[in-house]
């Protein structure tokens, strides 16, 4: 699928990209990758994509409730990141929240583009979560899904099977064909690693 980008923003010329150092790697923080992206580094942009495509798609899916529109919102978000990376100021905070804000704005734009009739306010109080709760839930999911991308595949598998496939530890062991002790070791290591990544995301970069 082609990206649709407003013609007002020109992408950096290839020469600018060629002038960049080839330093983009998984060790760099989100903020550093955004700065490199601002200078036209395609590798840095690709690493950001791998880290954030799934959290962004999850956020868009929860907000828009439609996979097709969520897909479009993710593409628009990355187009915006490529365009607007130069406006990121590392001294104002880490890159993760900045990326979250870009994604949220793209999703809101897509949500507004939908022509829906006005809904009348219900007479009775709703038990559904309100905007603050939804925002908090989105932010939690965003950080957790982002952190999952940092796990090695062997650890991510045990977490996904245990948490979202309804398998017990013994069943995970059977499914993966590994000893139960290995499942437990990987699970504990995965939780510890997730804790580290989540701490990093919450702290400064």
């Amino acid at each position: 699928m082609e990206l649709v980008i407003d013609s007002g923003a020109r992408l950096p010329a290839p020469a600018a990209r060629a002038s960049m150092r080839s330093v983009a790697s998984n060790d760099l923080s989100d903020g550093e990758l955004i700065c490199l992206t601002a200078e036209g580094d395609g590798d840095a942009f690709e690493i950001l994509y791998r880290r954030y495509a799934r959290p962004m798609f999850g956020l868009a899916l929860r907000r828009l409730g439609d996979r097709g529109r969520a897909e479009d919102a993710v593409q628009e978000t990355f187009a915006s990141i490529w365009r607007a990376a130069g406006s990121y100021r590392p001294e104002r905070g880490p890159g993760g929240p900045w990326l979250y804000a870009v994604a949220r704005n793209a999703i809101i734009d897509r949500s507004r583009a939908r022509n829906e009739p006005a809904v009348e306010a219900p007479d009775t109080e709703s038990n559904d979560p309100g905007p603050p709760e939804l925002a908090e839930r989105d932010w939690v999911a965003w950080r957790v899904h982002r952190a999952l991308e940092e796990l090695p595949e062997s650890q991510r598998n045990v977490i996904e099977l245990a948490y979202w496939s309804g398998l017990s530890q013994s069943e995970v062991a059977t499914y993966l064909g590994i000893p139960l002790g290995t499942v437990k070791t990987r699970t504990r290591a995965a939780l510890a690693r997730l804790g580290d990544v989540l701490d990093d995301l919450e702290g400064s970069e």
Partner: protein
Amino acid sequence: MNREPDFRELVGDDVEAEERERLERVHELLVAAGPPPELPPSLADPDAEYSEPQPYEFLPRRRAGAMLALAAAIALIAFLGGFVAGHRNGAQFNSLGSAAMHGTKAAPSASATISWEERDASGNWPLKLVARNLPALPRNAHYEMYLTREGKRIASCGSFASGGRTVTVRLNAPYTTGRLGWVVTREVRGSPAQAVVLTT
């Protein structure tokens, strides 16, 4: 059924209090966050679209318009071709009724419509499932639909392997009466565990 994992089972008892507290916080965040979605193919393969700047080059507007028109024409031809082929092969489905299915915690954004025809002379009951937003499956896994009566599974209606935006499958069940319903489960080969992803 999908269930919340037991933290104690996951980490065991031989963890120091401080570390246990930290891991438990991560556990709670994982439960609160829910599963990350499967990426659709167009997003899952960034190498095709994002690795080099070339994909961001714009087509001239007139050419982009022509490409869109061509794509629309191809889509129309494909649709009409499928429609004609479907009718020619007797693929019509004469629905007598339908019921909505909704996603569970294991697939919250999934939904489906189950339709049924009149029972045939052999006592079979043709069904058609149109499911939307089922998560993509890992290897060695498939979806299976069951007919239920009074909430209990009484027969398999068949299995299918697909995820993505919309999938339409023809299934079958032995004709039955009573308070009926359906569930769709995600099943992993070699594992007794099943996660219900859709239910009426």
